[in-house]
């Protein structure tokens, strides 16, 4: 069906179709609309999930964990401080090898209080063992949420997946959305280590130094295996529904002398900058990173690279820039832009590319008097 929807409503629509057995969530701006929509679906009978209106995000993830280990499919959604409040359980979900799907509506962290888009919240969860994907359109939010369940639940993965969408700029924008008839795209979940009272085991007991690292390695092995799984699920999605996305969304990169690397809605806006620059005779391209974990292999050899970070690691640098620098042996021009919803237009992005200074870092809008 073709309609228009916000990013939040698109996520809720996907969740409704997947129909997880248990949804536990706590409202937070700008994710609220997802929770409200799901509560509405459950109340009017369109969604048969057990909806647990928990008292905190820590409990939201804990409840998903408790449900998931019984073999139930689970979903939650959060944002910003909510994500950080559940940080302990975010780790627990991955360590417990539970295929929980979570939408995170990217939002800055306080203080000062700021409800607008930034990626620092999910970046702070990047080492937890979750797969992380960043989307840039309402359609992509819907499609990726559907695929997230398949990827998380694949026997070669069995890790949770976080679908990230920019607060307000994507969560609250109305765009066209084509929903699909899922058919058997999402088969019933068969969790191999689901609790079975006839075969009692300990789940996550005290584990000594001689064994603990093996479980950590097993997460990494699955993270590596997830690359093939993501490819195959994306291919299947394309065959069934005609849309595909990939690890990166590349725009005019083939012959580009300079590539701008970014994530989320800025990555879409960057394409308009590329059109501008091409008209000026600058051979520029845009590479929008979708999957941050597992981090994709990027082909940036022999080109100038400009990285836009909507995040920061204090005392170190833009987190995406550092990833590009270390995995591609590139010397990117690192631009810190869009923090806390700072307006960044395609004109601004074109300016970053024109004025690039490889190896340097620049904070957009920061002048000596700031």
């Amino acid at each position, binding site marked *: 069906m*073709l*309609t*228009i929807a916000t990013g939040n409503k698109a996520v809720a629509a996907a969740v409704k179709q997947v129909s997880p057995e248990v949804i536990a969530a706590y409202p937070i701006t*700008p994710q609220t609309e997802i929770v409200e929509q799901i509560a509405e679906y459950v109340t009017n009978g369109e969604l048969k999930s057990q909806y647990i209106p928990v008292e905190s995000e820590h409990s939201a993830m804990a409840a998903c964990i408790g449900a998931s280990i019984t073999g139930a499919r689970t979903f939650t959604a959060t944002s910003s401080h909510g994500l950080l409040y559940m940080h302990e359980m975010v780790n627990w979900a991955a360590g417990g090898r539970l295929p929980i799907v979570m939408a995170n509506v990217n939002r800055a962290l306080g203080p000062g209080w700021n*409800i*607008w888009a930034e990626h620092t919240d999910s970046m702070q969860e990047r080492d937890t063992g979750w797969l992380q994907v960043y989307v840039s359109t309402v359609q992509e939010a819907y499609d990726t949420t559907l695929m997230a369940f398949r990827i998380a639940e694949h026997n070669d993965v069995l890790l949770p997946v976080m679908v990230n969408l*920019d607060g*307000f*700029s*994507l969560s*609250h*924008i*109305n*765009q*066209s959305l084509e929903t699909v008839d899922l058919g058997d795209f999402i088969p019933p979940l068969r969790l191999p280590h689901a609790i079975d009272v006839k075969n009692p085991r300990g789940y996550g007991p005290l584990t000594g130094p001689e064994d603990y690292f093996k479980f950590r390695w097993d997460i990494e092995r699955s993270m590596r295996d997830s690359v093939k799984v993501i490819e195959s699920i994306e291919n299947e999605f394309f065959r069934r529904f005609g849309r595909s996305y990939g690890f990166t969304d590349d725009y005019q990169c083939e012959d580009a002398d300079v590539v701008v690397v970014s994530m989320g*809605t*800025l990555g*879409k*806006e960057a*394409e*308009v900058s590329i059109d501008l620059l091409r008209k000026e005779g600058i051979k520029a391209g845009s590479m929008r990173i979708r999957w941050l974990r597992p981090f994709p292999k990027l082909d940036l050899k022999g080109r100038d690279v400009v990285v836009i970070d909507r995040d920061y690691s204090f005392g170190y640098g833009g987190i995406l820039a550092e990833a590009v620098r270390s995995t591609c042996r590139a010397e990117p021009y690192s631009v810190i832009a869009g923090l806390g919803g700072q*307006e*960044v*237009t*395609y004109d601004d992005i074109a300016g970053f590319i024109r004025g690039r200074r490889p190896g340097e870092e620049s904070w957009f809008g920061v002048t000596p008097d700031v």
Partner: protein
Amino acid sequence: MYEIRIHSRGGQGGVTAAKLLALAAFRDHKYATAFPFYGAERRGAPVVSFVRIDESPIRVYSQIKKPDLIVVLDNSIMDVVDVLHGLRPGGKVLLNGTLPHDMKGFQTLSVDLTTIALRLNLVVAGSPILNTPVIGALAKMGIVSMDSAKSAISEMFSDDRNVKAAEAAFQELVL
């Protein structure tokens, strides 16, 4: 790409008007996006919403800086906000009601949306509904087709007075 900025007060329906307009454009087989600027506003505070309409997919997320059209649902906002800011040369303005202000030579149209709403008793929580009649006025201006305007309104609202309000605004707006 055609860019529209809608000024209203929180609770007057500017955000919904933007969504209705995008849906109508979409029903015209065009691409459209609609989004408000979310601040910490509460009811009664000035709110800005944006609509972009184009023949090809819209990849721009930043706010509209140089609109082609400005819609003002509450003229009192003009006392506190420079609604004409950034309006392109040749751009248009649509006001609710009369023309008390200096519109700096921009082509300005007006229709009394509030009276239309009150006449049809389209009132929620004491406020006249402006977001459905304004779509009729915008259809008269050719931003969307009237058929799509009506279909968008019926998709979002079951009360057929909303379509009637749009029709009234369509008739009453003098181009």
